[in-house]
């Protein structure tokens, strides 16, 4: 499938959204989609036999501060059956960066989306476990944003030994599991 056919059939798969082919210097087919179209497009990409993009290779974000729209979320999907690769990008504004999760389509997205939330502060609506992944849970700010200073002085958070009874510990565990939707 060549590039034009791929983009045309993507547009046919999600007729309600405007799919725009993006310039790509590395010859990788790249499209921009509006953020409302992400769930429908993700399902179509995975389930339609002419695409069969069952493998989500990469999910990350780029901060183009101070340009606007500031963020881009990047999905790299691979179709093993059809030997295709596709890069899908979503532009997000600086004041309200959020996009729907694709965890339910590709389970691999779970931690990748958590990482993007952790490091860029981009929220994924409907994510089953929206916690930080790499940074400590009480960390302030989103380190990979371009306006996050590199030489930052943080007040150290001194942790005291855990002062809970066994019952409290257990109920905390249960609470933790409930909030994670299990």
């Amino acid at each position, binding site marked *: 499938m060549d590039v034009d056919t791929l983009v045309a059939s993507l547009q046919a798969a999600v007729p309600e959204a405007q799919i725009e082919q993006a*310039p*790509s*210097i*590395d*010859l*990788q087919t790249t499209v921009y989609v509006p953020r409302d179209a992400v769930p429908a497009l993700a399902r179509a990409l995975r389930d339609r036999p002419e695409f069969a993009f*069952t*493998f*989500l*290779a*990469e999910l*990350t974000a*780029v*901060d183009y501060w101070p340009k606007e729209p500031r963020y881009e979320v*990047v999905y*790299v999907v*691979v179709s*093993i059956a059809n*030997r295709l*690769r596709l*890069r899908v990008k979503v532009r997000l504004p600086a004041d309200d960066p959020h996009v729907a999760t694709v965890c339910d389509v*590709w*389970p*691999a997205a*779970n*931690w*990748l989306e958590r*990482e993007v939330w952790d*490091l860029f502060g981009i929220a994924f609506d409907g994510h089953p476990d929206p916690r*930080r*992944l*790499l*940074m*400590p849970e009480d960390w302030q700010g989103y*380190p*990979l944003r371009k306006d996050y200073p*590199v030489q930052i002085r943080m007040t150290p958070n001194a942790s005291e030994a855990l002062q809970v009874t066994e019952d409290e510990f*257990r109920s905390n*565990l249960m609470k933790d*599991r409930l909030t994670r939707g*299990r």
Partner: protein
Amino acid sequence: MPDIKTEVMTVNMGPQHPSTHGVLRLVLELDGETVLSAAPTIGFLHTGIEKTTEQKKWQQVIPLVERMDYLSAQSNSMAFCLSVERLLGVEVPQRVRDIRVLIAELQRINSHLVWLGTHGMEVGAVSVMLYCFRERELLLNINELLAGFRLFPSYMRVGGLREDLPRGFHAAVVAFLDRFGPKLDEYEDLLTKNEIYLKRTQHVGVISKDAAVAYGLVGPIARAAGVDYDVRKYFPYLGYETYDFAVPTQTRGDVYSRYLVRVAEMRESMKICRQALARITPTGIFAIDDPRITPPPKDRVYTEMEALIQHFLIYSQGFTVPAGEAYVPVEGPRGEQGFYVVSDGTNRPWRVKSRPPSLLACQALERMIVGGLIADVIAVIGSIDVVMGDVDR
């Protein structure tokens, strides 16, 4: 008979447990010996390499990316160089491509040897570890010969290699390959039909074909479940389509299948190494001839003004990369690996993102161990071959 009091027990495994390959913490809930739930916690080794790269010049990123996945250092730097070269729009000479293939395959053997050694030790075969590390020493010696550094040679450069092959390189690689084939048979004698090893690994940590792809575990784990996806075959780079090798697969997707796949991969890598070595001349071109990117040879720097200026420009300012983004996938020892690099047209990267195969393996760990026995947790963690430097970056 008195009632036996039973209760669900919560156990913290790690982050200092010797079998978690670094600093992986697992909160396990146990009913007797059965694992009811598992929650991996990561981030203890997060050093912000991706943020650090944004302060560095392009060439200075190479030592940093080598330290991400510290068992496949040269695969990392090769993937990074390929992405940047794609952005620059340059193509390295054929000899450099062959040398890169050779180094990448040696690195794969190196990584699989560490995996086999530690995994064998964790399921009780301590002698395998000693033997594997004995052969790995030879590979580290080759690295030392090549670049003077054993674990992180930083021998790859954007636009080629740092310098030409050292004298005696061919002899060292041939000596290793001649020795390694029979040694691999010895490891197989120790494990492949070993009753204890079979009992520890068969039908343990099973993941199905579809789940492996859905969780992004492409690489040896998916191949052990029957997915024949290998970037070298599906999306060839560096001329892999001209090499004769097979992609070993298994069907059961358990720990034992992963062992079989990785051992077979080492044999295929040896085949590729011999083919690549036959194509490489002992001396020759080792970088593209592009004055923007590669520094001039030292003897010209000492005698010509223009070469001196070029030398200073490259070492003080670096080179600029056209604005844009690139992601070139390669087949690393742990599966598809690559660097998504974004440039804004300056001499420093705007964003460098590694695709971490170990992070995805860690994510799917829960699926593989819940319902099994606690002793199998060790075998499964070993079999997915996580490197925490790659998980946390």
